[in-house]
């Protein structure tokens, strides 16, 4: 526990020194939220809708930080620490190398939750956000989405032969996910063809779950996204454990 605490503190400091996550996980979702708030204010999501456009977007915007930490932050840091032989170094101490991975997962989760809190505060203070959904359902969906996106990142970081490959893979995953899964560009505004493509992305399914939980409405069908997200979390975690390269 002592090791986890000290490592967490130090790794968090190092991460803050790097600034990337502050920009991509904390600032970016806020900027998107403010833009959506200014553009759409408290307009209804569609004619006759019981909730605003902003309320509808909330479930999407909160996943930006999850994506930034999960598919960008995690693969990079894991492959970096393998390349620097930090994982190997830990092998010759009483602590297992898996500890530092747990610490990193914890740090990216902290970024995501901080972003969630700030996004909610900003939206309710300045844009009069009202959510009609259930908090337990929302948090359940939120952590499930986090688990599945983080598991993708751990798998990529765990099997990529070096940091360069990990960086390329992270970019291939991150940017399309950010733009086309509905996290930044609203899914509802996409033409149907684009929606079809977006549906193939795990985060799109996650966002459907989050929207359904936050708005308290049956958004499309919930069962299918739930199965997909759960399946991805289990498969990627399993694969990461099986094929993870420590050196």
């Amino acid at each position, binding site marked *: 526990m002592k090791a986890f605490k000290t490592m967490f503190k130090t790794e968090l400091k190092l991460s803050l020194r790097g600034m990337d996550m502050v920009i991509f996980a904390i600032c970016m979702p806020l900027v998107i939220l403010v833009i959506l708030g200014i553009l759409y204010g408290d307009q209804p999501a569609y004619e006759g809708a019981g909730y605003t456009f902003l309320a509808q977007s909330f479930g999407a915007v909160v996943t930006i930080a999850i994506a930034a930490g999960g598919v960008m932050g995690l693969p990079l840091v894991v492959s970096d620490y393998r390349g*620097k032989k930090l994982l190997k170094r830990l092998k010759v*101490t009483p602590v297992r190398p898996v500890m530092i991975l747990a610490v990193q997962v914890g740090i990216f989760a902290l970024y995501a939750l901080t972003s969630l809190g700030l996004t909610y505060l900003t939206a309710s203070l300045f844009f009069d956000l009202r959510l009609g959904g259930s908090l337990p359902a929302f948090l359940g969906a939120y952590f499930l989405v986090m688990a599945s996106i983080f598991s993708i990142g751990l798998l990529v970081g765990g099997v990529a032969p070096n940091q360069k490959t990990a960086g390329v893979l992270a970019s291939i995953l991150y940017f399309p996910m950010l733009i086309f899964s509905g996290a930044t560009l609203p899914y509802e505004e996409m033409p149907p063809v684009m929606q079809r493509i977006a549906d193939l992305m795990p985060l799109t399914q996650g966002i459907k779950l989050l929207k359904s939980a936050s708005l308290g409405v049956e958004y499309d069908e919930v069962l299918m996204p739930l199965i997909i997200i759960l399946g991805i979390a289990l498969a990627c975690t399993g694969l990461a454990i099986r094929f993870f390269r420590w050196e």
Partner: protein
Amino acid sequence: MTGIEGIAGMKKTGRTGKREATIEVQDLNKSYHQRKAVESLNVSVFPGEVFGLLGANGAGKSTTIECILGTKKPDRGRISILGMDPGKDRKKVFERVGVQFQEANYQEKITVEELCEVTRSLYETTADYRPILQQFGLSDKLKSKVGELSGGQRQRLFIVLALIPDPEVVFLDELTTGLDPRARRDVWKCLSRMKEKGLTILMTSHFMDEVEALCDRIMILKKGRNIFHGTVQEAIAKSPYEKFEDAYLWYTDGDEGQMKYKGEIEEEGEWNESI
């Protein structure tokens, strides 16, 4: 070569003492894709001893150390550190063992103090790192980034890290490679101090003056095999030379021309240092 192996064999049986070895390696074998990296190696390092593992690049020194530590899995062989199996009793063994690897392993923007704090948090019982840093002339570097230290300072820091668990055994892999002569001398001083305290040290080195100054016993590896095992004096006596460096080169390669060339380069390094 068979003559030398015979001598080494004799030494080995003569040395197998009654004392319990701190590090005991029996019949260690390791291959990478058919190529034998280490072959039938036996090593015993006794309490308080400084043991030098020598040989050219690729002779199997690092592989041997990694197999002993369990970061590489040997194909065959029995290994014990402090009477325990480092594979099975990992947690217990590494509570009492300090390790410094050849490659620098630290986070890019970490400071000396942070690295020391994290290292300390990994162990149950630790020494206070501040006096050790002071002893190694690094106390004014606490807030410095590790990446911004000079080569010599960084190497000394890595010894400090290896000492933070207050270990009984220390593994040092090519500690002074890439250092200037003064920095090397500083590191030697630190190592001598550790030796006086009764630490058991297993080290590798490319510098024969260093080995002469520090090691109680040495083993010379060539292509993964033990070709000499004993003290530096014994190594010289069994060779046709009077200087250890010449003797070492005689052991490690038979080719006269190449040996001379290598000798010249190494001597140049030594000459620089005496200035």
